[in-house]
């Protein structure tokens, strides 16, 4: 980015500065430690200068916002046009309680919904399954049938909000329920805006709510791609998630690498069933983590955008600009929240959210201060949402596009993260792709190693966590935590019993039979699942049919 003569001069001056000025200072004031590293353990130099960007090319590597390779953002004007979508992940207890929380959040100025489902729902069990005992309504809302879904969105116009649903293995069932609810409101599928997570690969890697083995899972995922391409053009068909990979302990580089490697696998799968890359790729979306190291995180988002654009263009030959753009949701890092001095988490979340905004996120969830202790209470969620509003309206960082570009440090980090992530992707290619790398336990083990190192660094005080291994105080137990009503499980089970008495059981049986038959072929299952859902077949019934045909995944762990 600088001409040769200028660069030579800078190098020479830098040497002089190091040998004279710095050495003198070091003698009098040694630095705090021998080695400085980023939050992910990458080495950090004392100073970055144009010398570090000698190989960089402004027009090729950065270019302008809204232009390939989108390093500076996917839209030309970014937040000068519209802020990111403020979207707090929420849901607990019954559909009725969650519905109340959604309305509260919308009243507080939230601009999109994000539905958290309870674990039985995520793993395709009804509330009355033995495995569901003690789990119903705990980490999200319990959904057994369309009836619950109707209650969940009661009084919320689905043509006005965009909804994100964190659901993976049984994604087709929940998407079908959403479509059915919309239909009852008189909203056609092609008007629906939102995202379904639908990313099973990261469930095998990091999150654990899988049901079926990889092959049938990939089929269900691509069924959604195909269905949405025809019926729901505004819907994001997948949210390829690095968030949980990072939460499981991955570094920034690993987060980018494994997420994009998953992305590659989905694109491959869709192409394999005959879809054209530019038909489905524009609806792929991503989901990243915003961790503590502000500048490394900003660089991570920029690197991910650039690398994905290159992959789509060079590896898959995508032509549509929208296919090349990595659009992403961000959540601040849950794993950084501390149970100790919980209010400190507000400051942590602010820094992390700032990273997401400086990194050009399309939507954002900010964690609440009390989430290392329990599900967030209402006033904690409000502070978290206010943090986003503060960044948007008061901080000033939104007034220009990609304000950190050109920082020698941020650009160097961006280059390094991209390079190292690509090396990982090449390694995974060599193993035979992501599915194989998961089966061999390679990815899981890489993450586990990083997680263990992170923990050891904290215990050896190489990494300081304020309030945990430094600046500790004695404190009383926190007050006002959210408690999920213990009656939820019982109520869900009763409702389920009632439903099974009231619905047209003959029709349910017929629809399920047809689903079973079709699941054995390679036809798209979305229309049949939609029929099942509309006749009030339960989530568990539908998933049981699919389990009987697809089998169940057994985790592959390398310890």
């Amino acid at each position, binding site marked *: 980015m600088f001409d040769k003569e200028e660069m030579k001069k800078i190098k020479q001056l830098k040497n002089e500065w190091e040998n004279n000025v710095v050495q003198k200072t070091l003698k009098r004031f040694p630095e705090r430690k021998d080695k400085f590293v980023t939050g992910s353990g990458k080495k950090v130099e004392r100073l970055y200068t144009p010398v570090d960007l000698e190989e960089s090319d402004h027009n090729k590597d950065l270019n302008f916002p809204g232009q390939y390779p989108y390093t500076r953002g996917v839209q030309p004007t970014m937040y000068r046009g519209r802020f990111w979508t403020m979207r707090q992940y929420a849901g607990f207890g019954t559909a009725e309680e969650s519905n109340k929380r959604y309305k509260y959040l919308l009243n507080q100025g939230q601009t999109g919904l994000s539905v958290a489902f309870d674990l039985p729902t995520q793993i395709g069990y009804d509330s009355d399954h033995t495995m569901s005992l003690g789990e119903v309504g705990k980490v999200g809302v319990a959904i057994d049938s369309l009836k619950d879904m109707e209650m969940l969105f009661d009084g919320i116009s689905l043509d006005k909000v965009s909804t994100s649903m964190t659901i993976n293995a049984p994604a087709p069932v929940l998407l079908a329920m959403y479509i059915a609810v919309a239909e009852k409101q008189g909203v056609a599928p092609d008007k629906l805006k939102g995202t379904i997570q639908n990313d099973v690969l990261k469930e095998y890697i990091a999150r654990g709510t899988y049901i079926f083995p990889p092959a049938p899972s990939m089929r269900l995922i691509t069924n959604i791609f195909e269905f949405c391409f025809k019926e729901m053009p505004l819907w994001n068909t997948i949210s390829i998630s690095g968030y949980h990979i990072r939460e499981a*302990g991955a570094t920034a580089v690993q987060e980018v690498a494994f997420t994009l490697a998953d992305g590659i696998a989905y694109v491959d799968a869709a192409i394999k069933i005959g879809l054209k890359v530019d038909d489905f790729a524009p609806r792929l979306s991503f989901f990243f983590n915003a961790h503590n190291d502000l500048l490394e995180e900003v660089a991570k988002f920029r690197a991910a955008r650039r690398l994905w654009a290159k992959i789509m263009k060079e590896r898959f030959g995508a032509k549509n600009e929208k296919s090349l753009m990595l659009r992403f949701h961000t959540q601040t890092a849950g794993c950084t929240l501390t149970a100790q001095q919980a209010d400190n988490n507000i400051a942590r979340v602010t820094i992390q959210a700032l990273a997401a905004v400086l990194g050009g996120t399309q939507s954002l969830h900010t964690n609440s201060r009390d989430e290392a202790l329990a599900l967030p209470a209402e006033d904690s969620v409000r502070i978290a949402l206010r943090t986003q509003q503060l960044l948007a309206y008061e901080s000033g960082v939104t007034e220009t596009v990609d304000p950190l570009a050109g920082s020698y440090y941020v650009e160097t980090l961006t280059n390094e993260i991209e390079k190292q992530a690509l090396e990982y992707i090449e390694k995974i290619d060599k193993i035979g792709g992501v599915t194989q790398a998961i089966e061999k336990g390679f990815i899981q083990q890489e993450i586990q190693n990083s997680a263990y190192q992170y923990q050891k660094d904290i215990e050896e005080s190489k990494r300081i966590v304020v309030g945990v291994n430094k600046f500790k105080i004695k404190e009383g137990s926190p007050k006002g935590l959210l408690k999920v009503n213990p009656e939820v499980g019982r109520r869900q089970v009763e409702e389920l019993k009632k439903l099974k008495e009231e619905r047209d059981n003959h029709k349910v049986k017929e629809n399920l039979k047809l689903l079973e038959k079709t699941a054995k072929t390679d036809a798209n299952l979305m229309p049949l699942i939609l029929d099942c859902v509309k006749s009030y077949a339960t989530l568990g019934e539908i998933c049981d049919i699919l389990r009987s045909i697809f089998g169940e995944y057994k985790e592959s*762990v390398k310890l």
Partner: protein
Amino acid sequence: MEGKKIRILIAKPGLDGHDRGAKVVARALRDAGMEVIYTGLRQTPEQIVETAIQEDVDVIGLSILSGAHTHLFPKVMELLKENDIKDIIVMGGGVIPEEDIPELKKAGIAEIFTPGTDTRDIIKFIKEKVR
């Protein structure tokens, strides 16, 4: 032959898939010289207790982040009692609100380790208890 080695079962009861903590603790215990049996996700209390019997462990470590601990931890204790097992120490970890701890301890859980726990404290606890 060598003397006694501490054997410990690290288990994830319920449907919660967050196993970062369980795996980090398992590794730390291994590095402290213990034999750690890890059984993977989605274990029922019945599976956990039967495994503990067959493996004759000194300690069971349960990890839950989903909030289902109020149901699943006491269930494990109940089954141990049913099997007349008094010599296995049970400890728990995860996102567990402080106000739940007294009840869990009353049910027989020896200790609860919440987020931010130093693995050396867990090791110390086990070594003191298993004697």
